[in-house]
C-alpha cells in the first residue's frame, strides 16, 4: 500500500497519485481564485500568503529548532524599512525584497549569539528585548523611519494586463510557493535534521556532530530572512509604514500563528497564518467581541488539537485512509 522503497522516495514531496492529484487541484483552485472571488477576498488571500511566509520562518526557529523567540516585530520592522528605503532608492521589487530579507537575516545572526548561551524563557526575554529595542530605534531615528509620519512606498505596477489586486495576489502566491518549496527542502535535509536534533537535545546533537553555533545561528538567520521578507511584503501591501505598526502585538500574533497552526509543520504554518488573518476579519462585524472570539478560537484549537490545525488535518487524513474502519 504505502511501501517506501528508497531514500529518494521517502524524501519525495508527494508519493501517492492521489496526493499529486489533490495538489494539482489545489494549485488550479489557487489559479482560478482571483477570477471567481470578489476583490476583497483576493486581497485577504494575499495577506494570508505574505503572513504564511513569516509564520513558516518562525516555525523553522520555534517549531523545528525549539528556540522560543519573541523578537518577530523587530525583524518585521527591519525587513519593512529596508524594503522601503531600497525601493525609494530605485531598487527593483525582487532586489529590494532580497535586501530586506538579508538585512533581517543579519540582525537574526546578531540576536542569535545570545541563543548560544540562553535557553527557554531566558532566550524569549532576550529576543523580546530585541523587538522592543528595534522599535525604539526606529521611533527615535527619523532617518531610518522616514520622518515623523513614516515612509511611503510606491505600489507594485501590475503587468500582463492584470488588475492590481490580482497581480499582487499572483506575485505573493508565487513567492509563498517558492518559500514553501525551499522550506520543505530545508526540513527534509541534514539542516532540518540538525535543527530537530538541537530542539530535542542540544547536548546529544553536539555529541552526534551537529555544530551548535553554526546551526543555531543558521536557524536564526533563516527565520529572520523569512520574517524580513514578510515585513517587506506587508509594507508593499500597506503602501505606507511607520514604526508603530511593528509593536509587540505583531510578535504575539506571529507566535500565536505558529502554535495554532501546528508546531514543526509547514502546512500548519500556512493554516496558522490563515487563522490569525481570517478569524479577526470574518468576525470583524462582532465589533468589540472580536478579541474574545479570537482568544476563544485559540483556546478551543489548542484544547482539542494540541498539534494545532495541522493535527486536525492529520486526523482527517487518517480517517479517510482507514475508512471504513475506525
Amino acid at each position, binding site marked *: 500500500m504505502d511501501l517506501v522503497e528508497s531514500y529518494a522516495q521517502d524524501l519525495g514531496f508527494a508519493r501517492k497519485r492521489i496526493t499529486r492529484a489533490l495538489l494539482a487541484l489545489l494549485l488550479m483552485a489557487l489559479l482560478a481564485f482571483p477570477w471567481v472571488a470578489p476583490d476583497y477576498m483576493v486581497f485577504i488571500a494575499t495577506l494570508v500568503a505574505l503572513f504564511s511566509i513569516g509564520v513558516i520562518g518562525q516555525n523553522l526557529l520555534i517549531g523545528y529548532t525549539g528556540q522560543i523567540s519573541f523578537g518577530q516585530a523587530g525583524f518585521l520592522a527591519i525587513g519593512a524599512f529596508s524594503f522601503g528605503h531600497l525601493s525609494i532608492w530605485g531598487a527593483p521589487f525582487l532586489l529590494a525584497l532580497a535586501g530586506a530579507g538579508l538585512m533581517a537575516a543579519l540582525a537574526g545572526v546578531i540576536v542569535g549569539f545570545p541563543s548560544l548561551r540562553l535557553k527557554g524563557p531566558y532566550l524569549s526575554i532576550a529576543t523580546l528585548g530585541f523587538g522592543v529595542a528595534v522599535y525604539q530605534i526606529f521611533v527615535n531615528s527619523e532617518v531610518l523611519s522616514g520622518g515623523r509620519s513614516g515612509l511611503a512606498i510606491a505600489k507594485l505596477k501590475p503587468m500582463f494586463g492584470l488588475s492590481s489586486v490580482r497581480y499582487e495576489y499572483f506575485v505573493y502566491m508565487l513567492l509563498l510557493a517558492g518559500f514553501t518549496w525551499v522550506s520543505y527542502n530545508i526540513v527534509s535535509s541534514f539542516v532540518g535534521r540538525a535543527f530537530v536534533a538541537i530542539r530535542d537535545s542540544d547536548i546529544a546533537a553536539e555529541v552526534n556532530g551537529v555544530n551548535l553555533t553554526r546551526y543555531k545561528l543558521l536557524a536564526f538567520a533563516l527565520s529572520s530572512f523569512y520574517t524580513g521578507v514578510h515585513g517587506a511584503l506587508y509594507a508593499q501591501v*500597506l503602501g505606507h509604514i511607520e514604526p*508603530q505598526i511593528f509593536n509587540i502585538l505583531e510578535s504575539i500574533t506571529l507566535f500565536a500563528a505558529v502554535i495554532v497552526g501546528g508546531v514543526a509543520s509547514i502546512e500548519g504554518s500556512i493554516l496558522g497564518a490563515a487563522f490569525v488573518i481570517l478569524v479577526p476579519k470574518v468576525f470583524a462585524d462582532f*465589533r468589540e467581541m472580536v478579541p474574545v472570539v479570537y482568544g476563544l478560537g485559540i483556546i478551543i484549537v489548542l484544547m482539542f488539537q494540541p498539534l494545532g490545525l495541522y493535527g486536525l488535518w492529520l486526523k482527517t487524513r487518517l480517517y479517510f485512509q482507514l475508512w471504513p474502519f475506525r
Partner: protein
Amino acid sequence: MKLGILGITLLVAALGATSTLAQSKAPGVTDTEVTIGITTPLSGPAAAWGTTALAAEAWSKHVNEQGGVHGRKIKVVMKDDGYNPGRALANVNEMKDSVFALVGLLGTAVLNANKDTIADAKLPTIWPYGNPEVFAKQPKEKNRTVFMVYPDYTDEGDFLVQQAAKLTGAKKVAVFYQNDDYGKGGLDGVKRGVAKLAGSMALAGEVAYEVADRELSTHALKIKESGADSIIIYATVTHCAGLIKEMAKVGYRPKIFASFPLGDRHTMFRLLGELWEGAYYNVTGAVPGEPEGDRIIDILLKQEPKLKGRESFALTGAAAMMAAVEGLKRAGKNLTREGFIEAMESIRGWSPEKLTAPVTWGPNRHHGGNPIRMMQAMKAADTSFKTVTDYQPFPAHF
C-alpha cells in the same frame, strides 16, 4: 456532481444579478436604504476612540426615526479593525463596492494605508480622524472624495504657546510629548510658537515618553529641573494624569496647557481631582455641560445607552454622521457618489447642530475646518469649566 453543476449555475446567476444591480444604482443604495460603512478600533489599544463610531451609528438611528433621508433609511455596517492598518485596509477593501460612503476612518496609520484605496475606488470618506498632512501631501485630485474636519497638531502647539504667554505671562515653557507623529507634531508647533515670541519666551525643556511607559517620575523630575513656569502636554489621558501626579509629588505645579485629546474634563477630573483645577485645555467642539452638547447627548443616549460616560467622544462621532446626512440631503433623491461629492462640496459655513465651528468644503477645499478653542478647568467638585477663547481660524491644509 449534479449538485456541483447546480451550485456553479446558481453562483454564476448570482454574480450576474449583482453586477446588473451595481450598474443601475450607486453601490450601497436602494430605494429604501443607503449603506454607510465604518471601520474603527472597537478593540485593541485605541478602543476608547471607537466610541466615535458608536455615536455615529446612534445618530443614524435617530435620523431613521425621523424618517431617514429622502425616504431612505441609513444602514450602518461597522467593522472592528483593532487600530491595525492592515485590518482596516482589508475592511475597506471589502466594503468599498458595497457601501455608499465611509464615515470616520480613525488613526493616522490607518489613513495612510487606505488613502490610495479610497481614491482609486472613488469612495466618499466623510470626517476621517487623523493627521490632515496625510492628505495634504497628496496630489489634489486624489482627495476629491475626502471630507475632513480635524485640527493640525502643529497649528495647535503654536496656539498653546501664544495662549500661555497671553493668559499667564509664561516666560519658560516645557513640552511633555508622546514620541510619535502626534507628539512630535505638537512639539514642532510649540517650537514655532516660541520662535514667534523670541526674546520674551524660551523653550526650557522637551521631554518625550513612549506609549508603553508607565513610570513617569523621572519625566516629572526632568521637567521640574528645567524650571519651566508652564507645561504644554501632548499625551494620552493616562500619561498626562500620571505626569501631573508625579510632578505634584515633588511639589511642582506649573501652569498646564493641554492638547485637544485631553479635552474630556470629566475624565481628567476623575483621574486628577483638584490637580486638574486651573488647567487650560483645548476642545474641538461642543462639550457636555454646554446646551448644544447636552441636547445631542440626550438624543444619543436614548439610542445607545452604552455611550454613558463617554460623552465627549460621542459628540465628535455624531458630528461625523451629521455631515454625511447633510450631504445625503443635499444630493437629492437620485443618489450617486458623484452627486454626493458635489453636494458635500457645496457645504459652506455649516455647523453640525452647532457641535463645532462652521465647516466649509468646496472643490478646492477638502479640509473643511481646523477647529480648536480653549477652555479652563475650574472646580473638581462640580466638574465646572470656563470657555477661554472662541474657535480659532486656522488655515485649511488641503
